[in-house]
């Protein structure tokens, strides 16, 4: 575990990211879009390259030394994820393509098992589409309904009525840990405790949480916890679903094929125990090993130091941006992480995004796959800057200058 140490040596860290030396439109790139996808440091890229050059084969197959080696590396990566999330057993760690697939797995396997006609699925008002649409599909199939925990104008969930929202028909709560639009860090532990008191399990979307704060699934008492490799300095195409073993053992498989079976005959097929029964087909092995390397990298930096650095940048950017005329920040929760969404009077977010791009500043402009959040705040889209451990105060200054120039242009 990390202890109190020196702040991050950001200039040294930046050497691990060749992309940060690129130039767009004659301007050095300022990458403030880690909430869309984090950049991978060289040790992660090199680890995957080493696997593909020297170690590549399939896993859980055959008796060759090569195959055993690949299997060991792949399972070591799973063990790293277990440690990272504080799970009790590596059997509770399922590889998926990403958070979206992980949440679909919960909906299609666990959800289909427990949700019946007339039941209710509870979601928060700040969910990403990935934690809305799979539940709508299930609700439609089963004749169930979706209910929503509302939020206030600061972008904080209104929890006063939570105990009334959870009825005897509620079968699951889907909850985002950190909002990808508003940056709100939800009081997940408290909400889970209150939801469990009514006997309802909770699935947490942790995609935007794991890069910024230490997560302990046993301390949270989450039933399921999902995240993506590529937001955690790892590659795309790999993600994780943590599930309590008791749930995983009770759940049916959701995709069939090789790897997930114990034996197959025309009469009867039996399945592997978890996590194997949820992992049909050949997995993205290099990506899994790369995610393991990303966890090593992030843990070596220390999530406490990462959080402290990003919080300083967020505070600095907030102070500078909120002073600009006509600029409004969306998401002013007391507890925020690393994401800063804003709109400017008279400038559409897509125009602002293009103008910032012209200054080398990479941000996200759009609805952030969270259209109900846009509707809640009555905006078509926002511009969003997101900060990572390799960003600097000087980069925040470039962002602010670029926004000022855009405001001047549109005056």
């Amino acid at each position: 575990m990390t202890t109190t140490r020196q702040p991050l040596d950001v200039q040294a860290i930046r050497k691990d990211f060749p992309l940060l030396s690129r130039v767009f439109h004659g301007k050095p790139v300022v990458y403030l879009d880690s909430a869309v996808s984090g950049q991978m440091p060289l040790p992660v890229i090199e680890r995957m390259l080493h696997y593909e050059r020297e170690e590549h084969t399939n896993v859980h197959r055959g008796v060759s030394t090569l195959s055993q080696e690949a299997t060991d590396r792949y399972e070591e990566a799973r063990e790293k994820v277990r440690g990272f999330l504080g799970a009790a057993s590596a059997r509770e760690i399922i590889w998926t393509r990403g958070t979206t697939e992980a949440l679909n797995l919960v909906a299609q396997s666990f959800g289909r098992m427990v949700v019946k006609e007339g039941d209710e699925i509870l979601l928060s008002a700040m969910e990403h589409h990935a934690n809305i649409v799979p539940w709508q599909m299930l609700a439609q199939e089963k004749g169930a309904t979706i209910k929503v925990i509302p939020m206030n104008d600061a972008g904080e969930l209104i929890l006063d009525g939570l105990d009334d929202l959870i009825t005897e028909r509620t079968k699951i709560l889907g909850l985002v840990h950190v909002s990808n639009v508003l940056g709100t860090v939800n009081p997940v532990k408290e909400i889970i405790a209150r939801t469990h008191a009514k006997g309802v399990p909770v699935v947490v979307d942790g995609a935007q949480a794991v890069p910024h704060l230490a997560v302990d699934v046993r301390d949270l008492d989450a039933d399921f916890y999902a995240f993506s490799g590529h937001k955690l300095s790892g590659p795309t195409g790999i993600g994780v679903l943590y599930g309590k073993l008791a749930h995983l053992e009770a759940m049916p498989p959701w995709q069939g094929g090789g790897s997930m079976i114990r034996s197959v005959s025309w009469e009867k097929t039996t399945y592997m125990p978890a996590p194997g029964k949820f992992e049909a087909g050949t997995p993205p092995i290099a990506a899994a090993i790369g995610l393991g390397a990303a966890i090593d990298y992030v843990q070596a930096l220390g999530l406490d130091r990462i959080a402290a650095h990003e919080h300083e940048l967020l505070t600095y950017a907030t102070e500078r941006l909120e002073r600009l005329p006509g600029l409004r920040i969306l998401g002013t929760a007391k507890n925020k992480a690393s994401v800063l969404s804003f709109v400017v009077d008279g400038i559409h977010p897509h125009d602002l995004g293009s103008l910032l791009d012209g200054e080398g500043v990479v941000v996200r402009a759009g609805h952030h796959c969270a259209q109900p959040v846009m509707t809640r705040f009555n905006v078509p889209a926002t511009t969003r800057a997101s900060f990572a451990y390799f960003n600097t105060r000087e980069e925040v200054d470039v962002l602010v200058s670029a926004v000022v120039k855009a405001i001047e242009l549109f005056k």
Partner: protein
Amino acid sequence: MSDPRELYQQVILEHNRKPRNFGKLEPCTHHAEGHNPLCGDQLELTLVVEDGLVQDVKFQGSGCAIDVSSASLMTQAVKGRPVAEAEAMAEQFRGMVRGELDPATQTPLLGKLILFQGVKDIPSRVKCAVLPWATLHAALKGEEEASTE
């Protein structure tokens, strides 16, 4: 790739600030709604077509500066023109912002609308510029809705 800032010329900014022919014609002979799902741009176009001429046209809705200025300049450009010519302009505009037609020689009907040619270098914004023209095409064809998807 050209600099996105070059696209935001004064004409575009000015039409965004003060869109021309903004509103709704009632009654109208042709009508369509345009929607750009990616950006959330929304546009409603109403026209009065008589004797094969676009006698009047108005638009309303919300969108980015590229979308709004494109709509505003389009209404000015097609007003008073034969329907067939308006359709041909839509084709030329679409071809230009997709980089398929050279504004120097291949888009004679567009006139000052060639100031949108820079859009072709910003693929993510092509749909914004095209939406008003796609909506015009839909309205003239008697379709209720146009989408850039």
